């Protein structure tokens, strides 16, 4: 017997989203974009989750991180993540606002890790 096809597969194929961008449309070291990202991070990401300057969460602290790439950060912010903990997706922010968050988090990565 032919296995039943999941109708969700067909829908997914028909509406497959465009691949996510892997490079920011602006210079991620630009202080203005970093500042905008910081403001949004503090309003949406810090309390209850990532903490001040990304010190919290189940993810390693952001300061001093050298393993974070812009493409990876943009993807996680856009899609969220589910493991033993959860992060909701933030695709409702415009791409520009998501890249501003990337700019701020990568700026934290360039700062020395907290002792």
């Amino acid at each position, binding site marked *: 017997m032919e296995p039943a096809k999941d109708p969700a597969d067909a829908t997914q194929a028909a509406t497959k989203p465009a691949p996510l961008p892997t490079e920011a449309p602006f210079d991620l070291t630009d202080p203005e974009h970093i500042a905008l990202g910081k403001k949004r991070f503090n309003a*949406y990401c810090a*309390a209850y989750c*990532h903490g001040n300057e990304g*010190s919290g*969460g189940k993810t390693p602290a952001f300061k001093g991180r050298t393993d974070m790439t812009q493409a990876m950060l943009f993807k996680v912010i856009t899609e969220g993540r589910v493991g033993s903990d959860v992060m909701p997706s*933030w695709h409702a922010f415009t791409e520009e606002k998501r890249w501003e968050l990337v700019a701020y988090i990568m700026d934290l990565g360039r700062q020395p890790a907290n002792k």
Partner: protein
Amino acid sequence: MQKHKVKQTLKIVSAAVALGLTMQGAAYAGSGPGYEDPNNWPQFHRTYNAWHFSPLSQITKANVKKLKVAWIHQPGNITMGQQSFPIVIDGVLYYISANNNVWAVDAATGKTIWHYETKLDPVANEVFYKAASRGVTVGRGKVFVGTLDGRFLALDQKTGKEVWSTQLTDMKKEFGALFSAPPQLAGNVLFGGTTGGDQPIIGKIFAVDADTGKRVWTMEIPKNDPKSWPSEKARSEGGGTAWWPGTYDPTTDTIYIGTSNAAPDYYPDERKGDNLYTATLLALNPKDGSIKWHRQEVPHDAWDYDSVYETLLIPINGKDTIVHLNKNGFVYVMDKDNGKLQNVWQYTENQNFTSGIDPKTGEIHNPNYPEVGKQKLFCPNLLGTRSWNPGAYNPNTKLWYSTGMEVCNTVTGAKQEKVETINGLALGLSEITLVDPPGKKGDGWLGAFDPATGKVKWKIRFDLPPISAVLTTETGLVFMGDFRGSVHAYDGDNGKELWNFNTGSGIRGGIVSYAVNGKQYIVVPSGLGSHVPGFLSGKFPEIKTLPGGSSIIAFTLE
């Protein structure tokens, strides 16, 4: 039906006592409130007085060290850990795991009887409080669930098949207003509120007919009164949800349910007024949701100090009296019939949001409000003096056992801008950092209190603040779990540790006890979860290394 069974059981017990018979197996001695239906854990706190007390006495201080694992049930989904408070009725244990997976399990063997996987609207993946599931309610032949896509849902108790489902919130318009805690029964009325308190919405308490799912009443928590809210805009974004289960006192036909902080949390400037009925304990008429009385514990809250925790009914001076912990670190002792204050005592060791609270009027003296653009220290922090994990009251020791967290936060207030996304919160801040209390190292504790006065009988320190519920039993045992996953049994008289067992992941949910086939069991939900561990890891980095998980572990004597 349940009541009839309770009466029958009590009659049998009375007859046995009258005949001088010795009760065998998982025996118990007491009677009256807190002792009903001794073999079961039929509702969230076991009994309506929210004691988290089991009258069973087979497991004692002398033999507790012989506790061994009887069975383990693993649901297989570990997202946000295992936060549930199991219900046990007549040898069947009902619990919930991540994403509203509901389980009925043989309470003697751990074998699955049925499993219901709730089909959730995809919007449930987008919200701030996704995945977290904290329990079910069982009664009237059904298992009731508050869902992560804003519904109340009823399943057949025997088969797990869906009986009815009622959509109560508009998730997209109401910033992901969903149910993470189980709605509760008040007769044939099923009631409950949505999670949070920090979203820019009008928080509501919903009530439906438990047999049909038909809506009965809805109460808007932000009161429609210009004296409480300066504008309709402020009220309509005022938050005030009732996110933790209320209790139903059948002796007075009263629902007790607490409400959350007002929103935006740390930016109260545009919501001048007392902001009723946020941060309030409500006594409601279950028939129509009308307010019998209310006690607002934190008027014009500006620190995220919800009033949602358990409503204890404890005999004080010969009368059942409400003992109610607020997130602000104070316990409010009040008349259960009118909310009149009898005392307010300080529970937390560190607080600086007030110079003191008047024990007669509840007035918060010299409130230390947040300010826009200025960093200020506030104790307790926004997670509260304790999280939602309830304490336990023992009628023999007359002590209330409950956990605490001694951690503060700095906050820089900010004008609240329009919340842009469904998963955004209205916190009114531009900076928040968890910090030690001044001059001390942040930590947590389990304490034994006189519930009327706050006098401390004993305290045990924990370097990571415990976030599990507490269970106490007829034999004076106190069970609780820690962040690293060990469940501990203490002597309730002096706090001496008598037994522990490492379950492998942190303990967040409700430890319960029941008896089946003459054997007493202790059941421990294991699995670190909720937003608390993630946020606390900014202060306690070790938490980042602690594993998640989800299992229900039953212990019994060899």
